[in-house]
């Protein structure tokens, strides 16, 4: 934690008349205290300064507060307004900032907050599969529910599609069928117990969740993790990204009935999962990353790991060429589910989805953490904003992940020493932790009190990106639905928590 010199100045990219007092905080966390009545105005000024919305939450450290988190110029700006006499009331951000709508609804519906001027809507957090609630009027218009029981093997989420037969007139995404209360579940647990819960918030991104959570705890308690642990964390994270991206590509091949292509990418994904099982004992890399470091070195010889990565790279390159040379596949993806850059920015979307629309945002690059402070990263972007662009971004990132893995293997040979540090000394603290999950930027707020978790809040990439899904069908028809959904590559478990 940086030492506080009173008073701390604002970074020069913030307007001087912000009307906020800066409080000390860890690196990349610009903590600002504002009066409750100024919360809305200051948020607006941050947006005007180019900030990306991350989340809204109720914090309890150092005192009960409404907290807004925004990403701006390589920092997270944390705006805090104390809650006076227990009543949480604030001017609606969602009324003018689409990115804030769902986070705001969660605060209102789950925590009894009052958002003044919030647009009236049906409850978001208590979905009912049977209430369709159509909005489009017209003679031949009908509503079609997709989910929450999906055809095929997919997680539960519901889309209500209003259609005139073929074209999609309106779409409404309904998350929260899977809300399990995972944030509340960690309260009272020691950090190394809580990480078991955190790994299971979004099972396909267990490593990312464990990393973001552990980094939050470490930052809150002022702990430095050994470099060897940071190196392994990066390697497990990149293997997780490879598996996830291959999964999306295999599913795209499946929806376009390119069965040989589907089989090829499924094979590559399965090989990645098996490799992870050999390294960690878990196909999902669970049980390795803990607050303070990693539990063990990967259980694989360097030469063997390198050989696996070489084979993976060779096959990826070849299958990518075939994939992109298959007209039936590519024709389908071109132009499908197009998201304009302005829309992506309005919704503060993240991950491969944002990068596919030309927004160069990646937590590994914006606010480098762990070993990414030492590894170079090429942020892969594409301009077209369609399903093809999102697939292309993933293809590019596969190569980049493999490069990072090789670089990490080299680094690992040069660093000896411990894998964990004891979490002792400080017993209290609060901080944000973040990482780039395969689905996009993940940010977790953690408060530790007397050595146990006092509060946790998760800003998942899946929830933030899904708000955009309603707008992904400007010219598309029903038959395009599946491949556009896959091109988003999100997980309901992460969104619903």
């Amino acid at each position, binding site marked *: 934690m940086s030492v506080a010199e009173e008073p701390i100045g604002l970074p020069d990219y913030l307007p001087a008349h912000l009307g906020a007092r800066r409080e000390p905080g860890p690196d990349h966390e610009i903590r600002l205290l504002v009066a409750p009545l100024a919360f809305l105005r200051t948020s607006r000024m941050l947006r005007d300064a180019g900030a990306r919305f991350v989340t809204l939450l109720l914090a309890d450290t150092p005192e009960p507060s409404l907290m807004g988190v925004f990403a701006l110029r390589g920092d997270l700006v944390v705006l805090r307004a104390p809650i006076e006499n227990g009543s949480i009331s604030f001017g609606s951000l969602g009324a003018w900032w689409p990115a804030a709508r769902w986070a705001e609804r969660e605060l209102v519906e789950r925590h009894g907050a009052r958002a003044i001027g919030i647009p009236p809507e049906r409850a978001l957090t208590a979905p009912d599969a049977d209430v369709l609630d159509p909005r489009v009027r017209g003679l031949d218009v009908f509503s079609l529910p997709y989910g929450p029981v999906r055809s095929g093997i997919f997680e539960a989420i519901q889309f209500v599609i209003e259609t005139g037969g073929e074209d999609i007139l309106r779409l409404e995404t309904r998350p929260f069928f899977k809300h*399990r209360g995972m944030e509340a579940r960690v309260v009272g647990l020691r950090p190394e117990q809580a990480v078991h819960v955190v790994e299971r918030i979004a099972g396909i991104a267990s490593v990312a969740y464990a990393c973001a959570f552990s980094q939050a705890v470490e930052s809150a308690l002022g702990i430095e993790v050994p470099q060897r642990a940071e190196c392994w964390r990066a390697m497990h994270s990149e293997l997780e990204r490879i598996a996830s991206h291959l999964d999306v590509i295999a599913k795209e091949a499946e929806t376009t009935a390119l069965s040989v292509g589907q089989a090829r990418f*499924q094979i590559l994904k399965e090989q990645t999962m098996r490799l992870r099982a050999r390294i960690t004992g878990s196909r999902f890399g669970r049980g390795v990353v803990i607050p303070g470091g990693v539990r063990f070195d990967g259980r694989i010889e360097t030469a063997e790991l390198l050989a696996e990565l070489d084979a993976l790279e060779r096959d990826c390159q070849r*299958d990518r060429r075939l994939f992109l040379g298959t007209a039936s596949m590519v024709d389908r993806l071109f132009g499908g589910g197009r998201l304009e850059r302005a829309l992506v920015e309005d919704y503060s979307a993240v991950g491969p989805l944002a990068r596919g629309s030309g927004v160069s945002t990646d937590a590994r690059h914006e606010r480098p953490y762990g070993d990414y402070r030492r590894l170079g990263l090429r942020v892969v972007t594409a301009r077209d904003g369609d399903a093809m662009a999102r697939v292309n971004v993933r293809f590019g990132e596969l190569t980049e992940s493999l490069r990072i893995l090789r670089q990490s293997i080299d680094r690992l040979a040069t660093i000896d020493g411990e894998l964990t540090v004891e979490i002792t000394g400080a017993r209290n603290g609060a901080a944000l932790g973040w990482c780039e999950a395969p689905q996009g930027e993940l940010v977790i707020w953690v408060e530790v009190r007397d050595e146990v978790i006092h509060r946790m809040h998760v800003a998942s990439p899946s929830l933030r990106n899904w708000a955009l899904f309603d707008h992904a069908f400007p010219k598309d028809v029903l038959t395009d639905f599946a491949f556009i959904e896959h091109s988003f590559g999100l997980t309901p478990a992460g969104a619903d928590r």
Partner: protein
Amino acid sequence: MLEWIARGLSKRRVTTRYPAHTEPGPPGYRGSVSVRDAGGAAPELARVCPTGAISVDGGDIRLDRARCILCGDCVRAAPERFAFSERYETAARSRAGLIAGGTNEDEEAEPARRALGEQVRALKRSIHVRHIDCGSDGAEEWEIQALWNPFYDIQRLGFFLTAAPRHADVLLVTGGVTGPMRAPLERTWDVMPEPKALVAVGTEACSGGLAAAGGLVAGGVDQVLGVDVYVPGSPPAPIAIMHGLLLAVGLLREEPSA
């Protein structure tokens, strides 16, 4: 297209021969936890487990795999008593079949692996599988999807996916059943014709897992509907789920109970 086919053919056979042959997990794989020494344990030992899977009764340890998330806390705290095993086959037809330790040694309690393969053949028809997610962490879905990839190719054993519950023989349920998924789950099961089998996939579906204590899930599918086969694991690997499906097939051959 031709090039794709050539690419497909040029690859060596990758498909598992399970269940005709065994397939263990890779060395160090955390497939399940075994109790090595169940006697004379102190009651406090139960406290190491975050999900309450371990209980100590009169000095005897019982480990309920339906609750186990394979976190390894017990193995680290008492390696002389608990150990990970690389075994994939953890499914059982009852909750009692998932108890390890004490006097219940579970290894041979279920039909042998080869016999399971025979059962499918004896059924002389394909088996249609439907899936419903009632609040998983999302990993179970990946592992079930994997059953239809070239490595597992469960179609070779006669299992097909169906989107229509009216044509389904087996329902795979993931997740501990959240409030909004309860009614959709009951409805899906109701329209499936007899004979039918319900398979709970994953520790969350078996008992609610870590989410159970939060009170927002029912605490396992069997709190809502009768479960025929439990496949614990967090998540269970594809072979573990395949084993569970094969156990379920045996039930389809038996007459539906009146």
